[in-house]
């Protein structure tokens, strides 16, 4: 008889894996056995809970106790106190989750979760992603059953169309339209593909869904295949996501074992099979035509459209390609209906969006909010604000294809159209928060370095143009820029935007254009005054010792790695600007705050 009375959920997402959750699970096994309760308590490795900054995270049910930043040595206490004696170890709980009276709050009352609405992430952190039964217990494969036994392919497309679901990969193209185009092509071989080639710096939404709930993507792809009349699918995922690849493969195997993939699913004459294709991690392979070229075994380069993939895609046959998060919404739309989905979000952007919250923010992690939630709500309420009492300066959405949202627009509702209107873009969901110490020219340079690296080189505007833009940015940040450079930069950016072959090149100038739009004064400060207002560009910066404040204690001189500081004891010291490498060590070490950046 199985007597499980308590479940210990340990986050097994990539974030918590790197902060050591594997060790915790082992230690739980050891300590539970030692206490003699290993048969009563079940340890489950789940997907991402979202609060990555506080990892590794452990949640104990039925109490719902939320332990954060758990260390190996805490496990013994949790086992002996909480699991054996029923006394929750309050000092290890996440502060936010405890009421003043030491009563535990339910998870959905914690600030971080309160404003969230989890549709794509509904099972992440709740189920064991490696156990298909748990997915089924939370209504998994029910939508597929409904589709195959009660609906025609046309009805499936009609529901998705009615729900107004738009692609979550970035451009926001209506999902049902793609399906409809592909379905209308003459009968014959067709393919269903999933884009899991998430590559923007700081984005990990798709990875977390695949790690936490791989079956929902498999189920949705099978539904899509039924809708367009396909019998074969491919998930294109980067090999850099080993945990996701591993769990996805296990999930596919389990689904095949249960007959949820393969021939005659649910006793119908519909058959569908699914395979993983590993990508080598080239950003351009997130572009649909390049992705398909890569699946075919060729070098991942885009080709001009039309013909669109829905007409002529993988191996020249009609193919649909959707992003992981888009698929994750499908089973819920089928089960709850289009009306339910349409009730969430704004007029033209329905449903929710997952964001990977990063940068200068308290609660780094994964959040899912209804469309139309303002940036302020995400940053201040869910994200917990900016650490160290610094001020919010801007948020960058959409990674290297997106733009910046300045403080003045912090109340912008986050949806496809509002973001495009202000020159940013939804993108796949990376949201990087910047504070007053971030230099906007430097940020633009960072993203340009990325696109220059990742440009496939097929078309000249992107291959040569992005490189030239980067050179100009380097010139500006090193203090050698001129006002003319800024004009050239604008010219180049607009030309590349309208002439590049694929989405990568067309959107590459966005970080420059949007920072120029909202922070042109910062660019001007770099070229005219040769000054970096945020104090981030090293070449435009010098450290000096204020003679009046310096007590001649010699601490700075002792800590300087290049011996650039000299002076006589008890007299003001001096920094030799030619030797100084601007590492900032002295500023941090000075007990009298006598060293300043200029």
């Amino acid at each position, binding site marked *: *008889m*199985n*007597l*499980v*009375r*308590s*479940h210990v*959920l340990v986050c097994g997402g990539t974030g918590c894996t790197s902060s050591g959750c594997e060790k915790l699970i082992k230690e739980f096994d050891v300590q539970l056995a030692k206490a003699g309760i290993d048969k*009563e308590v079940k340890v489950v490795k789940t997907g991402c809970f979202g609060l990555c900054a506080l990892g590794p995270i452990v949640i104990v*049910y*039925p*109490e*719902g106790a939320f332990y954060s930043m758990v260390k190996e040595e805490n496990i013994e206490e949790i086992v002996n106190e909480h699991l*054996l*004696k*029923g*006394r929750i170890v309050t000092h290890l709980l996440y502060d936010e989750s405890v009421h003043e009276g030491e009563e535990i709050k*339910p*998870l*959905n009352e914690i600030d971080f979760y309160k404003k969230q609405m989890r549709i794509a992430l509904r099972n992440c952190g*709740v*189920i064991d992603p490696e156990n298909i*039964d*748990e997915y*089924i*217990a*939370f*209504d*998994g*494969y*029910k939508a597929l*059953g409904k589709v195959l*036994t009660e609906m025609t392919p046309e009805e499936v497309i009609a529901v998705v169309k009615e729900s107004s679901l738009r692609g979550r990969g970035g451009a926001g193209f209506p999902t049902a339209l793609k399906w409809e185009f592909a379905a209308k092509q003459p009968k014959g071989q067709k393919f269903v593909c999933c884009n899991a080639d998430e590559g923007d710096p700081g984005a990990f939404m798709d990875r977390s869904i695949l790690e936490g709930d791989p079956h929902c993507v498999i189920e949705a792809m099978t539904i899509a295949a039924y809708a367009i009349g396909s019998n074969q699918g491919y998930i294109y995922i980067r090999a850099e996501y080993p945990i996701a690849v591993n769990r996805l493969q296990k999930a596919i195997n389990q689904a095949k074992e*249960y*007959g*949820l993939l393969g021939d*005659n*699913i*649910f*006793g119908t004459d519909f058959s569908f099979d699914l395979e993983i294709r590993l990508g080598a991690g080239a950003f351009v392979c997130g572009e649909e035509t390049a992705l398909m070229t890569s699946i075919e075994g060729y070098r991942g380069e885009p080709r001009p459209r039309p013909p669109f993939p829905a007409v002529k895609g993988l191996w020249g046959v009609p193919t649909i390609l959707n992003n992981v998060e888009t698929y994750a919404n499908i089973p819920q739309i089928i089960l709850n209906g289009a009306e339910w989905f349409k009730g969430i979000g704004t007029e033209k952007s329905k449903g929710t969006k997952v964001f990977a919250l990063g940068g200068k923010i308290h609660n780094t992690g994964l959040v899912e909010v209804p469309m139309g939630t303002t940036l302020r709500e995400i940053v201040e309420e869910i994200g917990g604000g900016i650490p160290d009492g610094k001020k919010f300066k801007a948020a960058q959405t959409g990674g290297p294809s997106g733009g910046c949202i300045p403080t003045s627009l912090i109340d912008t509702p986050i949806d496809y159209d509002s973001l495009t209107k202000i020159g940013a873009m939804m993108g796949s969901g990376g949201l990087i928060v910047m504070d007053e110490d971030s230099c906007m020219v430097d940020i633009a340079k960072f993203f340009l370095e990325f696109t220059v690296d990742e440009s496939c080189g097929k078309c000249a505007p992107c291959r040569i143009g992005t490189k030239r833009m980067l050179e100009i940015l380097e010139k500006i940040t090193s203090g050698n820029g001129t006002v003319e450079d800024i004009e050239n930069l604008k010219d180049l950016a607009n030309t590349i935007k309208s002439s590049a072959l694929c989405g990568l090149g067309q959107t590459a100038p966005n970080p420059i254009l949007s920072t120029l739009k909202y922070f042109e004064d910062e660019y001007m400060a770099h070229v005219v005054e040769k000054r970096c207002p945020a104090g981030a560009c090293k070449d435009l910066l010098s450290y000096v010792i204020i003679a009046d404040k310096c007590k001649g204690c010699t601490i700075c001189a002792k800590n300087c790695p290049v011996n650039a500081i000299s002076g006589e004891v008890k007299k003001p010291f001096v920094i030799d600007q030619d030797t100084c490498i601007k590492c900032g060590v002295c500023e941090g070490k000075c007990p009298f705050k006598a060293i300043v950046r200029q």
Partner: protein
Amino acid sequence: MKSLQELEAIRNKTLNEIHMRNDRTEGIRIVVGMATCGIAAGARQVLNALVDEVKKRNLSQVTVAQTGCIGMCRLEPIVEVYMPGEEKVTYVKMSPEKVARVISEHIVNKKAIKEFTVGSAEQQDKEERE
């Protein structure tokens, strides 16, 4: 997978195992005092019997949880039952045998067992002293 029934069967079977992960279920909560005093008096067997019984009867709306010392160590093992919208009922000096009755009479048939409660234990004490 050949039919929807098969899927439903897996769903129901697994749901019983993992329903406790729903935050603050609306249903009934049974809490066992599992401090040193409780464990010494045999709370572990009581707890296991409760979990066992709940599982046997497929009572998916019931959560069995544990708590620390309830304070009346001499009356351990103590079990408290929280029914939505009702005063909590505290059972004392519990045993695996008593558990079966609590589940069938109180949890399933909604009739608290007076003679097991703390009130009746105190009454008994009083009478003995007199």
